[in-house]
């Protein structure tokens, strides 16, 4: 019974939390993906803007940019979207602040423009070590073979002497 009370109060807590939290979700801007290699395209979405009240404006600010991007399409999940092409962007983190067509604030989000691909962080070893590994294996093999022959001969010699 006690466990039940705990469970119920936990459920009430979670319920209250979900009721109270969406304060931030009322005006939400999403950037997808939130990380892009320079030159990639990100989609900016103001989820709460009503397409009927006009285009949303996304203000993008960052290391070397302060631009306004106008929404071009209605987002599938509701709201308005625009595509942003990051070619020529300085690497770093950008902030997107959206305003709906009716002038209401539609939230902010950030995204990061990163280098492309991995790092060329190796110069290669001097020559190919595969050769010396193979030679080492060959030498060890012949040593083992020699040892085997020797051991057999000795055994033969012993059997010959005793026999």
């Amino acid at each position, binding site marked *: 019974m006690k466990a039940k009370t705990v469970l119920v109060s936990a459920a009430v807590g979670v319920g209250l939390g979900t009721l109270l939290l969406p304060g931030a979700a009322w005006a939400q801007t999403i950037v997808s993906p939130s990380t*892009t290699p320079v030159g990639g395209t990100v989609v900016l979405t103001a989820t709460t803007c009503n397409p009927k009240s006009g285009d949303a404006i996304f203000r993008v600010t960052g290391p070397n940019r302060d631009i306004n991007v106008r929404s071009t399409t209605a987002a599938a999940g509701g709201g308005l979207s625009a595509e942003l092409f990051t070619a020529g962007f300085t690497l770093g983190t950008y902030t997107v602040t959206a305003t709906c067509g009716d002038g209401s604030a539609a939230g902010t989000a950030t995204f990061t423009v990163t280098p492309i691909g991995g790092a060329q962080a190796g110069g290669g*070893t001097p020559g190919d070590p595969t050769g010396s590994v193979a030679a080492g294996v060959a030498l060890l*093999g012949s040593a083992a073979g020699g040892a085997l022959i020797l051991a057999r001969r000795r055994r033969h010699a012993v059997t010959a002497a005793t026999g």
Partner: protein
Amino acid sequence: MSRRRPGWAVRMIAVLAAGGLGLLTSGLSTYPPRPDDVPAGARPATRLPPLSRAEPVEVRIPTIGVRARLVPVGADARGELEVPPLDRPQIAGWYRHGVTPGETGNAVLVGHVDTAAGPAVFFDLGRLRPGDTVRVTRADRSVATFAVDGVAAYPKDRFPTALVYGPSSAAGLRLVTCGGRFDPDRRSYVDNVIVSATRVP
């Protein structure tokens, strides 16, 4: 007479074995160590107040004997992450468009695994294990200490951009170097080895 022959043979075998072992170890030790591919597990967030921005000047990794000066790096003309020049192989780079080590977010350090002259600053990065310590000295003389969460190799064409540069609510550190097979035709390693670490007290 029959006594001398085995003596010679034994000596011959010993020489062959020693030579073989020598070649094998020298050949194998020129390959950078492979990481165990421990994915970065979630570390219980110790709520440390983030440090303010201060450029890092030196990185120390005691378990693999690294003590290296850091220089700021950006990206080259193709948009790839810059690495300190090959003729200064013992210097590592700090990605200057990201946060500094100790700030909230992931700070990125990059260093060569080797050059044509031999092992470089991050040669043994693949040897690191979860829990190993990385210390970064910053320009304001403060030291940010990090504990390794995971070490893994990723093919360069599937570089985990979000893991390395992505946003984070904790103060993280990412160490990047090369690894895997060296492709002599493209003069390049096929993988990147990435160490993930989180700031600890």
